[in-house]
């Protein structure tokens, strides 16, 4: 599950293709325009490689870190069936990280380098996972609505241009469909349950609405920079388009359950476009840069896991191992 890669809006478009061989660039863009995929050893612009590494790596980190707030609830999930289901979901998320790290590696950044950048806090991951899951209902809202947002993003990106990323996403989307159903089932159970259960799920929705609105990232004006990324099929839809798609699909389903979305300005206008209170982007920036309620805990837990597993990995290692970049 994942939102959207955080792209620095200050990146300059002109610098993106400076010093690239114009003939190779033309052939590359022609191939993408024709709907062909780019494979690891093909020629590609440096910026294409850089943006894809950043994007796929952030996606992988999000799967790993996203498993932490959900994993919290495994031991306390109500009932044996829900414990099993949540364990399966968390295992899926960690498996998705493996698939994504593999796809990113084909672009030349080693897995160790990616993990190192995560645990020192250099790499980003989806902002929503810097918030805590206070109650079981929070875990249910995450499984339903955060995964719903992730699917919208991932289905779009699966039609991108980089072969290994598309193949990983196809597999991921299949598994995410179970997460969505599982999450919806849990939310429906609470929303159609006792007064206390309804209050719980309403509380969770109220807490999670702002992060959900942040999920797809700030509004991206059509800059030359975005235009090139879209032409290269690195970015498949604007952040606002994905947010609209999400609202269109899920607001009616939330309202169906008689739950209240904590935004008095939320409505669909006559042109069929959702209007809403502009999310607090200063809060978003603060959290993504390390100032959220759980950033420090997430990374400390991650470092702890790496450190405690290290001796096992070392004991299994053999001197004859030799790393080469995977093929596909």
């Amino acid at each position: 599950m994942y939102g959207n890669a955080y792209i620095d809006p200050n990146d300059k478009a002109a610098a993106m293709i400076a010093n690239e061989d114009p003939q190779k660039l033309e052939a590359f863009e022609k191939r993408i325009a024709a709907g062909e995929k780019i494979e690891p050893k093909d020629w590609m612009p440096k910026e294409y490689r850089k943006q894809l590494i950043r994007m796929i790596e952030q996606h992988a980190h999000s799967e790993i870190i996203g498993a932490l707030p959900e994993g919290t609830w495994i031991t306390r999930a109500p009932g044996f069936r829900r414990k099993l289901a949540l364990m399966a979901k968390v295992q899926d998320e960690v498996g998705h990280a493996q698939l994504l790290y593999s796809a990113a590696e084909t672009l030349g950044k080693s897995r160790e380098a990616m993990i190192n950048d995560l645990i020192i806090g250099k790499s980003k991951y989806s902002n929503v996972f810097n918030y805590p899951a206070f109650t079981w209902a929070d875990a249910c809202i995450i499984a339903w609505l955060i995964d719903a947002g992730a699917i919208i993003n991932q289905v779009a990106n699966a039609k991108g241009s980089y072969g290994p990323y598309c193949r990983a996403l196809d597999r991921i989307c299949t598994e995410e469909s179970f997460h969505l159903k599982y999450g919806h089932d849990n939310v429906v159970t609470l929303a159609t349950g006792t007064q206390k259960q309804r209050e719980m799920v309403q509380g969770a929705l109220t807490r999670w609405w702002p992060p959900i609105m942040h999920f797809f990232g700030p509004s991206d004006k059509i800059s030359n920079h975005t235009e090139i990324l879209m032409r290269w099929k690195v970015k498949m839809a604007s952040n606002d388009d994905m947010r609209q798609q999400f609202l269109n699909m899920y607001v009616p389903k939330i309202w169906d359950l008689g739950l209240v979305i904590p935004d008095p300005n939320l409505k669909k206008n006559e042109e069929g476009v959702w209007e809403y209170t502009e999310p607090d982007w200063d809060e978003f920036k603060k959290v993504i840069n390390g100032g959220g309620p759980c950033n420090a805990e997430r990374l400390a837990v991650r470092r702890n896991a790496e450190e405690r597993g290290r001796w096992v990995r070392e004991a299994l290692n053999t001197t004859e191992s030799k790393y080469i970049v995977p093929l596909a």
Partner: protein
Amino acid sequence: MIKSLDPRVTRAEIEIENPIAPLNELDQWETYEVFHQKKRGDQHMHVGIVHAPNAEMAFLFGKEQYGRRGFSVNIWVVKTRDVFASEYDDSDIFDTVPEKQYREAGGYKVMEKINKYKKGV
């Protein structure tokens, strides 16, 4: 010490400032390419890679990663460095020329001859 909403994290007594040495090269081992067969009678197909210290572990990870929802009946793992692969830049090695029609079913047209023969009889 982290006081977390997650009781497991609190029990693990993790320091919030716990810098660790960066992972060394090969900490995550080398890679294996994984092939699976969806059902008996199908070809084995490449599905992705796993990182593993040896073939047995690669097999276990491959099974977990690619076969855990009953999509496989058989799995192969091969060290990435043992795969000898062609380059996309050399894909012209697969080009063929129009003269090689003798290798295609469409290169054989007999109806014309048969019809001519029948008329002549």
